[in-house]
């Protein structure tokens, strides 16, 4: 027996080994990731800041947005959405790749590493990607003078929490599905797109008919957006609602991660 093998250490740090391997793979795509994570917000800020925003404010001033400039109003939503798409890229694709395309998870699971550790490792690396994207976005918001540096820094952890809640569910879904093509169609068209449009992103949720509002209530994007607005410009949300938003997102995260780790274990032990 090889005396250098150290199972207790792997039991403790296995998830971090997986995360660091994922980050290594991601780093091979660093140019593309940086271009996407910086280019995307840049396009939005320019289009909304000098285009749509100006038009909205000519129409109704800032009365519909609690006195906040339109671009500032949507900035927390865009930030949270960035975290969501970033974490989605880094949970969905690696998970399907790991189980199906290249079967990397089966290789990792041939060592003392467990399915649970693989799930958490993939998730942690995805959080890192989301954090990077959100920080880049936040710096651009500062540069464009959309938010002032200060308490608005809370936008970063809030967006990552929103992304993390959604990402945990995606991790589970990607581990569960067998046929990925249908999954991508449904995910993109029937989940991401409506969530982006109807989560109070471009207009307050309350300005929608009441029967459409539940889309926002169950959407991590809406909860993260509301929290973000409150932290960036004292949007006027009650403390109770702040707690509700935080509890909703944390609960989603914990449940999603619980389901995901169980599904990883199951699929690997088939």
């Amino acid at each position, binding site marked *: 027996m090889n005396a250098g093998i150290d*199972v207790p250490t792997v039991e403790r740090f296995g998830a971090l080994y997986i995360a660091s391997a994922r980050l290594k793979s991601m780093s091979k795509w660093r140019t593309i990731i940086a271009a996407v994570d910086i280019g995307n917000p840049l396009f939005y800020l320019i289009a909304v800041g000098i285009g749509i925003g100006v038009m909205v404010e000519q129409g109704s001033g800032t009365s519909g947005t609690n006195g906040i400039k339109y671009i500032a109003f949507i900035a927390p939503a865009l930030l949270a959405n960035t975290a969501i798409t970033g974490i989605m890229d880094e949970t969905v694709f690696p998970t399907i790749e790991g189980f199906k395309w290249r079967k990397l998870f089966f*290789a990792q699971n041939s060592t003392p590493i467990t399915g649970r550790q693989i799930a958490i490792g993939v998730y942690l690396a995805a959080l890192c990607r989301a954090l990077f994207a959100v920080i880049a976005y936040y710096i651009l918001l500062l540069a464009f003078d959309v938010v002032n540096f200060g308490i608005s820094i809370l936008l970063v952890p809030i967006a990552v929490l929103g992304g993390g809640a959604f990402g945990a569910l995606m991790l589970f879904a990607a581990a569960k599905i067998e046929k990925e093509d249908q999954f991508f169609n449904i995910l993109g068209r029937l989940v991401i797109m409506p969530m982006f449009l109807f989560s109070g992103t471009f207009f307050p949720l309350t300005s929608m008919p009441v029967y459409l509002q539940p889309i926002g209530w169950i959407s991590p994007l809406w909860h993260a957006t509301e929290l973000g607005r409150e932290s960036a410009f004292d949007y006027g949300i009650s403390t109770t609602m702040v707690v509700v938003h935080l509890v909703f997102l944390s609960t989603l995260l914990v449940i999603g991660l619980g389901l995901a780790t169980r599904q990883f274990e199951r699929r690997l032990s088939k």
Partner: protein
Amino acid sequence: MSNPLISARGLTKKFGDFTAVNAVDFDVAKGESFGLLGPNGAGKSTIMRVLAATSQRTSGTVEILGKDPELFGPLIRAHLGVVPQQDNLDGELTVTENLYIYGRYFGLSKKFIRNKIEELLEFAQLEEKRELKVEALSGGMKRRLTIARGLVSEPDILLLDEPTTGLDPQARHILWDRLFRLKEQGVTLVLTTHFMDEAEQLCDRLVVMDKGSIMAEGSPASLIKQYSSKEVLEVRFGSDRNKEVAPQLATMCERMETLPDRILMYTEDGEKLLEKITHAGMHATTSLVRRSSLEDVFLRLTGRTLIE
């Protein structure tokens, strides 16, 4: 067998209604090279996944290194090297990165892995490819890297699932040579194959499997001795005539198998039998005398050929 490294009793694995492995018993001793021979779908890979301490069995008992894999998965896997049927390397990483990252999953020190990588690159003849991305490697190189990766932790048991399937003859021979070296070093090998020549070359002992069950067990030589004759005469009379002449040929040898393209006649002396056939006025279009192989054992046991 005293203190086997692997011991399975009544091992059964079902997927829904389908029984992939049906109550198989076997042991593997330390330093032994043990093979599972059978056609695709015989249940070999399923057994390998159970032996790799990942897949859960439906019933039966299994002990690997003295422990139950369902209770001590990580502890057992720490001392196994696994080479799956389909290479599952990280294509985006380089050759050395693949070895290094995998070594870390065993909790091995950076220093140990770095030294080990040098040794493994030489073993796998990949020294010059060390900084290449895995995607750029040929099939044979990827296979050797997967085996090298399985060896990074100096495992007590190396599990190889169809190690040479899909490789060209030259790549296969290189791989056999490498595996033979491991065998000489005393590494316990468990391998599956549907190539009888591979089983003959590499296995000290093997089980012949079909449809989830073990049909026979023994060394290649003893299996051949027990289930086949010394020599085989293969004759072809053309696909239409094979059936016509079969009844007459059957009376001339101990046992006979009529395949779609040829007739196999089992005998102690192939040349003599061929003369007899010619004397009887039958002229085969082609004929070949060869020694019996595991293929013949399989045909005898199941009535089918290994590769269909």
